Structures are given as structure tokens and as C-alpha cells.
């Protein structure tokens, strides 16, 4: 019979992808551990957005804390609470889109639930998956979570400002990524000092350009 177990989610995700393409919105599925700095990256992105119109979906098991952080920047934001669930799925994103006007956006940042395992299995209709990882998590994350890192078009290595305080093998991390997923773009940044964020903004701009092309 051959049936993909998550076929229903994949179908819905394809519909969402068509919707994003219709409106020329570059949708990014931001994945990473709790505390990696996903929300901080979104905040720093909004500060640097210029004329790029960015909407945000915040996925968390509980609370609207992240949406409140984002709303301070005046960006359209929808909080999705999964009620303990470990990932966002396409149905949750579709529901959230009811409260976002895609016609007024260039970029949609979908911040997934903090988790390096489950989110990778659920297509949200995004154009790209990006993984945010940070130095305090340790330099072995690519080896431990290859399923997630292998799907990323971009990997943002955050908290580079802490490098002098931590034992983190940056060349080793780079090597693991280039072996696992040579196509992924690695960006080493600090959401505290702003180091490296220009490259992230460029990556987003390129994504918008490709979406509109």
C-alpha cells in the first residue's frame, strides 16, 4: 500500500508553501535547543530589518512570553502554544496564518519549539530550515543531532562572544557541518555584540530575492 505516515502534514505543508510563494514571502523554519537564542536572533533581525517586512510565528509549549518580546518591535507576531507538544506542525502554522497578512510581509520567521529532534520531521511549508545553535550547548551537537542539521540550509552558531570562556572547538564544528551538510551556510554570530549578524541579514535578503525572482 505504501503510505507516508505524515502524508497529511506534508500535503498541508505543500499548500502553505504555495501560499507563501503566491505572496512572495520567504518563510524560514527556525529550529534549535531551548536557550540557543532563537528569539534573540529574531529580535536582532527585527532591529536590522530596515524596509524588510518581517512577520513572526512563535512556537512554545506554554506562555506568550516570546510573542510579547517580539511585539515590542512592532512586528506582526502570533504565539502558538502547543500545550506541551514538542514541535510545530503545518496545521498549527495554517491556523496562525489566519492572524497574519501575508500580503504585507517579505519574510516569515517561524520559531519552532526548542528541540533539536522532533521539529525536523514536520514540514511547515517553509522555503528553508535554519538551525540556531550556541556555544554553551557544546561542540558535539552536529554529531548528536545529524537528522536536524542535515536538513538545514543555514546554521547560526550563536553566543560567539562567549568563546573565550568556553571550550568549544569551532574548527571541529565547522568540519562536522561541512561533512554532514556541505550545502548549509554557517554563520557565526553573537546576538549580544551583533557580531556576524550582517551575514545573517544578507542571507535573509538573498532568500527574499530568490522568492521574488
Amino acid at each position, binding site marked *: 500500500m505504501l503510505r*507516508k*505516515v*505524515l502524508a497529511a502534514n506534508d500535503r498541508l505543508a505543500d499548500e502553505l508553501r504555495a501560499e507563501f510563494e503566491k505572496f512572495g514571502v520567504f518563510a524560514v523554519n527556525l529550529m534549535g535547543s531551548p536557550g540557543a537564542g532563537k528569539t534573540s536572533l529574531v529580535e536582532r533581525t527585527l532591529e536590522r530589518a530596515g524596509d524588510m517586512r518581517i512577520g513572526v510565528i512563535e512556537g512554545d509549549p506554554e506562555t506568550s512570553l516570546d510573542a510579547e518580546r517580539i511585539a515590542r518591535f512592532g512586528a506582526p507576531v502570533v504565539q502558538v502554544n502547543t500545550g506541551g507538544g514538542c514541535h510545530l506542525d503545518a496545521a498549527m502554522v495554517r491556523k496562525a496564518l489566519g492572524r497574519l497578512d501575508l500580503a504585507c510581509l517579505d519574510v516569515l520567521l517561524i520559531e519552532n519549539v526548542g528541540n533539536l529532534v*522532533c521539529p525536523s520531521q514536520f514540514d511547515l511549508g517553509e522555503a528553508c530550515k535554519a538551525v540556531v545553535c550556541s556555544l554553551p550547548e557544546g561542540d558535539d551537537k552536529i554529531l548528536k543531532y545529524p537528522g536536524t542539521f542535515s536538513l538545514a540550509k543555514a546554521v547560526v552558531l550563536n553566543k560567539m562572544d562567549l568563546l573565550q570562556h568556553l571550550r568549544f572547538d569551532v574548527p571541529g564544528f565547522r568540519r562536522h557541518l561541512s561533512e554532514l551538510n*556541505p550545502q548549509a551556510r554557517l554563520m557565526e554570530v553573537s546576538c549580544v555584540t551583533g557580531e556576524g549578524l550582517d551575514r545573517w541579514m544578507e542571507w535573509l535578503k538573498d532568500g527574499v530575492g530568490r522568492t521574488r525572482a
Partner: protein
Amino acid sequence: MHELTATQNILSLVLAEARKVGAARVVRVFVKVGEWSTIEPDCVDFYFAVIAKGTAAEGAQLAIERIPVRYRCGSCGLEYTPEGGSFACPGCSGASGTLISGRELFIDSIEVVHADTRVAKSAGRKRPARGRAARGV
């Protein structure tokens, strides 16, 4: 942790197929689960037994086959399973491999009993079709 969702999907797909082929009961479900599918087979097995109660798939055995992660080297074409903390090709050390299996999550076939107690396998174990799905998942 999302195994319950996956198992619910498996059950509903299985029951739909059983209805389609006019089965009285589902005896066995053949599932392929890639090592990187983020699905823990033991959990699926446990949930399935619970949620299949009272359906045509009650008591059905889940035959879960784990599919290993395999890469094909972009330089020398060698197919390999990454080992020892490296994803590079063990043959030529090339780092441009493509994942060719390991993300599968699909139902391959089901075994059912018709009202006259014949045991039959639902169609679809043809090799080309399976190959396509394996790459597409």
C-alpha cells in the same frame, strides 16, 4: 515525543486501507522507520496496541523495520553509513555525500483477514514503488 501523532496516522491509514480491500481484520502492519525519522519504534508499538483497541486493527502486530542511514559519496560514488563521528566518505574522505536513506517513515504493506478467514497481503510491495517512496520520504 510525537510518536502518538505518528501512530494515530498509521492507524487511520491502516484502517482506511483495510476498508478499501474489504478486510475484516488487520493481522500485521509492515512499517519502515529510518534511523533519522525521529520516531522511536517501541513507543509506536506501545501506542498502537492502545489506540487500536476496538478497531479492525486491534491486536495487529506491528512489524517495524529500521532503515539505516546511508550516504552516497559525491566524489567516488561509494555508499556508506557514517561512523566514528565523521560523515565524510570512508573511501576517499570526500565531504559531499548525499543522504540516500534513513529518513523513511511509511507503511509498506498490511496483512489482513477477510471475513472468510483468508489471510491476504495488501498490494503494493513492488520494488520500484518502494524505491520511489524510500527516496521521497
